[in-house]
């Protein structure tokens, strides 16, 4: 995961390429304290990956940025923790900060 210093600019794409897909992202732990239990994010096709999601979230909720930069942050797609970080329309997404039981 690359570090997020500031939101990357989102350049206009041609109409043919610009297909926005809306995702609801569940947040847990301290992330939910900051931004609420769920946030809505619109990503263009071609942006449905972990890094783009983090960039959009950092734009929507700048206080999340330090926590989005945590290498231990996990993306959960359809209730499975994924490492490739790619997802598609219709997937359910969740962001899990570092876990700690016991």
């Amino acid at each position, binding site marked *: 995961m690359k570090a997020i210093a500031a939101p990357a600019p989102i350049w206009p794409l041609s109409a043919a390429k610009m297909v926005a897909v809306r995702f609801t992202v569940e947040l*847990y*732990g*301290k992330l*939910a*304290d900051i931004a609420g239990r769920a946030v809505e994010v619109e990503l263009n096709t071609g942006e449905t990956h972990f890094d783009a999601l983090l960039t959009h979230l950092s734009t929507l909720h700048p206080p999340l940025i330090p926590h989005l930069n945590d290498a231990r942050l996990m993306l*959960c797609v359809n*209730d499975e*923790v994924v490492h490739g970080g790619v997802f598609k329309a219709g997937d359910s997404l*969740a962001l*899990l*900060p*570092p*876990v*700690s*039981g*016991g």
Partner: protein
Amino acid sequence: MEQAELCTAPLDLALWQARFQAAAMGCGGAVTFTGNVRAENARGEAVEALVLEHHPRLTLPSMQKIGEEAARRFSLTHWLILHRTGRLSPHEPIVFVAAAAPHRRAAFNAADYMMDHLKSEAVFWKKEICNSGDLWIEPRTDDYSDKERWQNAGN
């Protein structure tokens, strides 16, 4: 008994201990461990409460996986993991693990293994409620190193 339970009510340790002992009757060794909410945090402040958040679909499977891996690794005949969620007061039991095996060493090691993995793999988030404010508790470096020591260890 091979069981993980996510509990919203206070743990009835006497009841679960009796159930486990009954199930493990005849095993060479049974080990149990109880973790309690500390009354002071790492900064020496009084803790008013500890709030545990869990994931509705990931938390219980994460506990089950730890128990099953311990059973496989240490050839357990029985195992049990109970974990609280919700708001707990200081001194309340937060976690209970039990392991039974033909010999004591395997049971001791399995209980230790389950706790080390619950600390940094079970899907929970913990928030301390103190007079000075609320604080999310992160896994400590020691929690990760406690888990890693099993990677190269035998039983």
